[in-house]
């Protein structure tokens, strides 16, 4: 698959509409982030978990989130970021309807 995103792109984590063997933590669903890096393409863990072969491979990104935006009572620096590895099928364009 040709990667849809590149470093610097604004993305939003898909909402709670996806079921199954989810590898994306609940607390970032629906949150906005920025693509920091593309790691490469890997077999889809959601398929592998049920005995599938995991193909087609899915692009995996490192996505950054603002800690202050994630947590209401965050007391650290406003520039603190959290990086999470997220597969492309868990991301949508920032601004796109969930």
């Amino acid at each position, binding site marked *: 698959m040709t990667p849809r995103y590149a470093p610097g792109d604004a993305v939003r984590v898909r909402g709670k509409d996806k079921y199954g063997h989810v590898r994306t933590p609940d*607390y970032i669903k629906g949150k906005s982030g920025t693509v920091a890096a593309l790691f490469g393409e890997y077999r889809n*863990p959601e398929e*592998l978990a049920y005995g599938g072969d*995991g193909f087609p491979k899915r692009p995996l990104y490192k996505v950054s989130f603002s800690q202050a935006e994630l947590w209401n009572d965050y007391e650290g620096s406003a520039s603190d970021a959290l990086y999470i590895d997220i597969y492309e099928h868990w991301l949508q364009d920032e601004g796109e309807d969930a």
Partner: protein
Amino acid sequence: MSGVHDMGGSPGGPIDKGQHEVQDWERLADAVTILLDKKGVKTTDQHRRAQESLPLEQYEALSYYERWTAATEALLIEKGVLTQEEIDAKSAELREHWNSQ
């Protein structure tokens, strides 16, 4: 919908940072689980899914390697390698053996 394991970001209380001494049965549970991967019986992704499918009260009550063995047992049954009856019978046999030592 998030699974029982997906507890990141929720209040969890203090973290126990104490060292955990690994028990013999835990080494064995680790070895058997990894060997089943090497033999192509199961995969890590399937094992994670089986752990995360455990009922909430079990998931929270079991220790790390107890969850591993529960998930390995579930996968072996799912794949038809062993039956629940065979596992239960062997467990009873071993329990009796150890209790008599």
